[in-house]
């Protein structure tokens, strides 16, 4: 009804006037942060340890959440020591829970700022920011007759999401999982129980004792492996090895891989700055501000005080690492982060940087 629509729009404009210069949702945040229609958040409802290093977080997503498909990941924005950092975690629960909740399992990795923080500080009631589920690491609607899952470490997480929702639809599923020790196997009990019930064939490999598994060795464990639709998730070198092996066998299209994106950037001195919108590429050596380097390369740069106090020169960095020329502090933006606004007048690149400008 256009009339009611107009009335509703009119009424909403009045509500917006009541709260100007901020938006009504900002006041809603004070009372019900999960109801905000513009900012998707989730509340941690429970924290359950899986292994010495891994915890499962049960999350209650806020308004405008969309259910995931098994195998997908979500990006979580976690305030680590006051700064919001974004990381991707595979959803480990099956979709369609009545309470709308889902779980992610976080493995505290070495140098992992966010995973270490969540491992130590996540508790019931904590809010995290959330993005909608994403990822193409999925089971097809027509379930394969024969399937194989090759995982290592926290690479089991998306596969667990798949098994929990579809194991009864996978008549012949083999899981080859590597972890350092039997105790390090995330979801070890549950996987072993599935195996005991005969729903999956589980091959556990404990790398501390037996060393890492090679793609070439897999045929000994799973003779019909190239007949199987295969999903693999784990460290990059393992996935490279598998991809090469499958390609050599001409079975490349049967292998689906999920790669973890790098989140640790190493600082160097200087680096190429790419302005993605204009296509300008500037070489920015150490000790030269991105502002100066950009201007020298012909990029139209916003600028103000040119001494780091007015924040007029900030540009969004999609990915990269910069060093504050005043105090040497580093700011990084990974592919998973929301673009990080950096002050170009006092920042020098400390590695390749991609700017949204």
């Amino acid at each position, binding site marked *: 009804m256009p009339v009611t629509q107009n009335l509703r729009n009119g009424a909403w404009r009045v509500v917006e006037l009541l709260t100007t*210069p901020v938006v009504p949702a900002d006041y809603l945040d*004070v009372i019900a942060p999960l109801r905000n229609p513009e*900012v998707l958040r989730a509340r941690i409802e429970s924290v359950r340890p899986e292994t010495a290093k891994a915890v499962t977080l049960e999350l209650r997503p806020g308004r405008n959440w969309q259910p995931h498909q098994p195998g997908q990941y979500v990006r979580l924005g976690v305030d680590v*020591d*006051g700064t919001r950092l974004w990381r991707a975690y595979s959803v480990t629960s099956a979709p369609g829970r009545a309470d709308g909740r889902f779980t992610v399992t976080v493995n505290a990795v070495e140098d992992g700022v966010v995973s270490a923080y969540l491992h130590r500080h996540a508790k019931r009631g904590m809010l995290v920011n959330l993005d909608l589920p994403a990822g193409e690491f999925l089971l097809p609607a027509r379930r394969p007759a024969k399937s194989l899952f090759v995982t290592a470490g926290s690479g089991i997480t998306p596969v667990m999401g798949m098994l929990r929702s579809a194991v009864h639809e996978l008549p012949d599923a083999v899981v080859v999982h590597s972890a350092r020790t039997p105790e390090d196997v995330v979801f070890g009990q549950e996987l072993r129980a599935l195996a005991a019930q005969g729903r999956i064939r589980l091959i556990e490999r404990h790398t501390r004792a037996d060393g890492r598994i090679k793609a070439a060795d897999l045929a000994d464990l799973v003779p019909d492996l190239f007949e199987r639709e295969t999903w693999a998730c784990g460290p990059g070198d393992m996935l490279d090895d598998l991809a090469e092996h499958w390609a050599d066998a001409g079975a490349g299209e049967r292998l689906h891989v999920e790669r973890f994106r790098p989140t640790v950037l190493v600082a160097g001195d200087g680096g190429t700055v790419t302005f993605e919108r204009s296509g300008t590429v500037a070489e920015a050596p150490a000790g030269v501000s991105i502002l100066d380097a950009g201007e020298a390369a012909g990029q139209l740069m916003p600028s103000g*005080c040119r001494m780091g106090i007015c924040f*007029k020169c*900030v540009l969004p960095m999609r990915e990269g690492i910069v060093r504050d020329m005043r105090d040497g502090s580093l700011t990084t933006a990974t592919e998973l982060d*929301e673009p990080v606004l950096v002050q170009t007048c006092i920042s020098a690149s400390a590695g390749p940087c991609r700017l949204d400008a």
Partner: protein
Amino acid sequence: MTTLQRKDVNPIAHLTPEDIEAIGRELDAIRDEVLEKRGEKDAAHIRRMINVQRRLELGSRAVLLFSFFPPAWLLGTAGLSISKILENMEIGHNILHGQYDFMRDPKIHSTTWEWDSASPAEQWKHSHNELHHKYTNVVGRDNDLGYGIMRVDEQQKWVPAHLGQPLYNFINAIFFEYGIAAYDLELGRNLKTKKRRANPAFRAALRQVGRKIRRQVAKDYVVHPLLSVPVGLAFGNPLGALFGTMSANAVASVVRNLWSHSVIMCGHFPSGVETFERTSITGETRGEWYLRQMLGSANISGSKLMHIMTGNLSHQIEHHLFPDLPASRYAEIAPKIKALFEKYELNYVTGPLVVQVASAWAKVFRLALPNREKPKEIDHSIPPRHPAAEPATV
């Protein structure tokens, strides 16, 4: 005040260029210490402030639905005044300085924040962060010296219109948020010639301010008052409710204006604060910039509540040294800053609010009249050490 470069007794005569750079290094070290600690505590502070302010505002506005009832009017107006002060000072001013940009929260970021003031954040950031904080107290460069309507330094040229400046200052205090909007627009300069009036950039800025003011006025003087009318009707006093809420909003805004005007006057106008010649900042080093901020600002002494209600502008000196550090850290570093002043025998200007406001007002009155004596020649050897080529143009 007279610019430092024309004073009979130069307060930094005892400092060598090496001393000035040493001061800069010591300040950098203090800054590094704060950066090291900056984090969760600061994020929690600003979130708590925003939360408290929004609850206080919602509560006060709810009480003002009964504004026809005098005690409710009083309570609601008091609450709303405090809420508006918090929103402008401890929250808006500090977020717009980028103090909380490190949080990477798009809701609490200098590029996205908008405040309850007539001036759009974007325009204020330009005139305040970019100009005032860079050119602090440089006569002819820093328009905060008298806001373009007053003469607050002997070196500013006297014209007969300055006779009225105590009155202008009082009117400006009452309508301070509009004064700031006009100031950010550089209204005086931009209305002067036809060409300037027709400048598209100026016209766009004007429209932006117009839109902001329309919405602010509609909120405080139309929508909220109308919202209390049904409650008034239920109690048989709809007009009392309408005008009660209207006047409550007006009073709260004026209280906020008077308060912020007073606090801001205390930042750079009290006696003991130095001003600088335009030529003195040519080739200025980081140490010299720091020194200018130290000499060009004044603090207000008081309790923790005073610091929060002033948005920590009571630590104006610390704020001008480190405008991008979270303001709640200023009190923490103030003893170190003060010690640095003592070590280098510099004057850390501070005093209670009443004394500082009186001192600033005294200057407004005194400089309404022309100078009694002709000013001394500029001493070009006072920072930077090399005489500037450009002649003084004041």
